[in-house]
């Protein structure tokens, strides 16, 4: 049975991953050109684009999308590279590395709420400094969160994208012989940072190029973080698309579709500009290398990098702490550093809603992750048995769902589902989640799965084990730790999904993430804190289990304890 299914798994995986993207883009193009039969509209025409161009907020929205996306990517990439260049192999770096997994799994929305509660004029930092240092007895009337330039939004995205890029960089470092390159550079008199940038960076960047593109595309089209931290009059283009999608009349829907295509064009354009910049930076870099400068300001650069890394990590961790304080806070007046009293009142008041949302979240995440895991193992095992490895082009296909902006194809997908009479709801939401969960589960499991010593399989076969027997009795048990890590990654990706849940669920599928983001406009900090914390817990707990379960299951197996 399995043997007959196995060869079709790769094709099935591609369909599950790319089918919704292609269908969604198709479903976006038609209404963008005025074709929406459900509403009695027949195209093609350019009315929607004319209306879009006539919208007064367009240039601000477009600019915001570009600045937040490019700003996030440049800052996050530069800080991560300088951090790794200046500090890899040191004790401070190992501490940051240990914080990496928890930081990575904190959902974007929860991190954004935490940041807002920290740096708002009435936030924790202002309270800690007032009135002693500032003299404030009332919060100042400053627009820090949702500032018109989107700087806070960039900050919120940077602190969440840095762990992702750091993880990808660490994975790439393993294949670049970085330690010896650093020794050689040091022996030739190069400073730590300069030596790394000149010898290791070009090799590392070639490996993390696709993840960097993902950050760029994501930063340009993110919705939940933009709703929480971004400006709103006008908002970045992606938020405006979602607003138009939410309006009842059909002209707004056409407008949303045309804006979605514009969003896609913007992301493609930005990626092209980024690619050209790579060439430019490489040329400048070669000139810099040829000068033979050994690096004179390595010291200050190292200090800046470590400070920035620490601030980024702290702003997520302290953000979670302030969420915890708010969730248990009784009366908390400004400028008190802590509430007058702590109580369980907020948790009790929202207990029912939180548990219902948690159940919905867990159900969706569980089923989607299991499906992604089965497809991923099927693909990798088919690759192993038929000895065909993924090409560079195949890797692009894997990254494609992460590069196409969500706001470009999800509105179209929703429209198609409604057209076909398929009810929006939990099932379609799961299929939409699978599009984003699959690539992450695959990327997480592929390296450990391929690194497994194939001679072990040869021995097992020589002992008479069939290919299925080798898989079930030897390979999967030996890979328990990376498999559980991949499951944790999948669960946390699904838990964090906002837009697919909102649009494909038609507003009727209430997960922790959609509920938390929906609360953001209301400003009830205690409710936001309760939902944000639960959201974080739902993403974090699987990572803890992924560490704990193999440690318990293999506690008497020395050969599997340091995976």
């Amino acid at each position, binding site marked *: 049975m399995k043997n007959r299914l196995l060869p079709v798994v790769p094709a099935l995986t591609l369909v599950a991953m790319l089918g919704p993207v292609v269908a969604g883009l198709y479903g976006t193009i038609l209404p963008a050109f005025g074709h929406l039969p459900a509403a009695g509209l027949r195209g093609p025409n350019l009315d929607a684009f004319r209306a879009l161009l006539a919208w007064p907020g367009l240039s601000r929205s477009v600019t915001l999308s570009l600045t937040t996306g490019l700003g996030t990517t440049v800052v996050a990439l530069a800080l991560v590279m300088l951090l790794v260049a200046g500090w890899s192999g040191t004790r401070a770096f190992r501490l940051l590395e240990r914080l990496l997994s928890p930081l990575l799994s904190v959902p974007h929305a929860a991190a954004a709420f935490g940041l807002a509660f920290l740096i708002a004029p009435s936030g924790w930092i202002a309270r800690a400094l007032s009135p002693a240092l500032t003299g404030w007895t009332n919060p100042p009337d400053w627009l820090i969160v949702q500032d018109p330039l989107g700087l806070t939004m960039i900050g919120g995205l940077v602190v969440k994208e840095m762990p992702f890029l750091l993880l990808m960089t660490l994975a790439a470092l393993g294949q670049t012989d970085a330690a010896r390159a650093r020794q050689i550079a040091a022996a030739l008199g190069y400073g730590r940072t300069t030596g790394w940038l000149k010898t290791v960076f070009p090799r590392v960047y070639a490996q993390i190029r696709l993840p960097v593109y993902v950050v760029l595309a994501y930063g340009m089209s993110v919705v939940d973080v933009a709703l929480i931290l971004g400006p709103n009059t006008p908002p970045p283009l992606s938020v405006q698309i979602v607003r138009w999608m939410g309006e009842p009349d059909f002209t707004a829907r056409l407008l949303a579709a045309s804006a979605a295509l514009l969003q896609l064009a913007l992301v493609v354009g930005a990626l092209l500009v980024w690619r050209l910049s790579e060439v430019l930076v490489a040329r400048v870099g070669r000139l810099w290398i040829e000068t033979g400068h050994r690096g004179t300001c390595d010291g200050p650069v190292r200090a800046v990098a470590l400070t920035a890394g620490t601030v980024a990590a702290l702003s997520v961790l302290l953000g979670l702490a302030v969420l915890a304080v708010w969730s248990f806070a009784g009366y908390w007046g400004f400028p008190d550093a802590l509430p007058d009293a702590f109580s369980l009142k907020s948790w009790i008041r929202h207990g029912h809603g939180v548990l219902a949302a948690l159940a919905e979240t867990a159900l969706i995440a569980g089923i989607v992750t299991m499906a992604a895991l089965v497809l991923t193992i099927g693909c990798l095992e088919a690759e192993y048995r038929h000895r065909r490895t993924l090409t560079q082009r195949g890797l692009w296909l894997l990254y494609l769902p992460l590069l196409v902006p969500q706001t470009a194809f999800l509105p179209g997908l929703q429209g198609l589902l409604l057209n076909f009479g398929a009810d929006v709801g939990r099932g379609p939401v799961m299929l939409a989640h699978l599009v984003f969960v699959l690539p992450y589960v695959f990327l997480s499991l592929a390296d450990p799965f391929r690194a497994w010593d194939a001679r*072990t399989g040869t021995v097992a076969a*020589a*002992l008479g084990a*069939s290919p299925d027997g080798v898989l079930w009795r030897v390979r999967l048990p030996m890979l328990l730790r990376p498999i559980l890590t991949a499951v944790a990654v999948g669960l946390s990706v699904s838990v964090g999904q906002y837009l697919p849940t909102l649009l494909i669920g038609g507003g009727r599928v209430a997960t922790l993430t959609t509920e938390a983001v929906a609360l953001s406009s209301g400003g009830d900090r205690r409710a936001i804190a309760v939902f944000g914390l639960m959201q974080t817990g739902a993403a974090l707990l699987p990572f803890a289990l992924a560490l704990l379960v193999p440690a318990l299951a293999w506690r008497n*197996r020395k050969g599997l304890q340091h995976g």
Partner: protein
Amino acid sequence: MDKGLTLDRVAIFRNGTPLVAFDRHIAPGEVVSVMGPSGIGKSTLLSVVTGTLPPAFTFTGRILLDGRDVTHTAPHRRMVGILFQDDLLFPHLSVGANLAFGLRPGGSPAERRDRIAKALVDVDLAGFENRDPGTLSGGQKARVALMRMLLADPCALLLDEAFSRLDTALRAQVRALVFARARDRALPVLMVTHDAEDAAAAGGDIVNLGM
């Protein structure tokens, strides 16, 4: 001529270029040693016999085992045993479970336990059933790996630099054990090694590749 392992005009090509050619019958109880510098294709030759030739290679010729043509048989149906330089014990299974993995199905649970216990006694590891393979010494691991292979009742034994990770004293001991067990069972043995001492200890014919 029927009994034993025959590599009938086997020629291996890497991306179309000839790499190794080998044509030879190995009688039951005979040990043939293949020597040559690394990279010459010694291990690749063994992978033709086990049926796990890497995709960059192709080969012509036939593999016969006790008169059966196994050239296109799936690896797990060939009954060809192999020992590598690493013990490759399954790290998630106890020593006893590793042996049970090798032991052909059949017999009551008590009989199977009994055969495993006897196999352990046979290599001076009595009572090691519940041990974690990760806690064994190099020599102990090598002996468990040998018994695991023999419990699968192979019709031939391949040795891929099987002794090269062991230190000198241990090496002679394990080598003598492996050859003795193979002779007891009248297994044809094909060994690849770069160590002249291994080949000398085997006492059989020595084939030099690439010279």
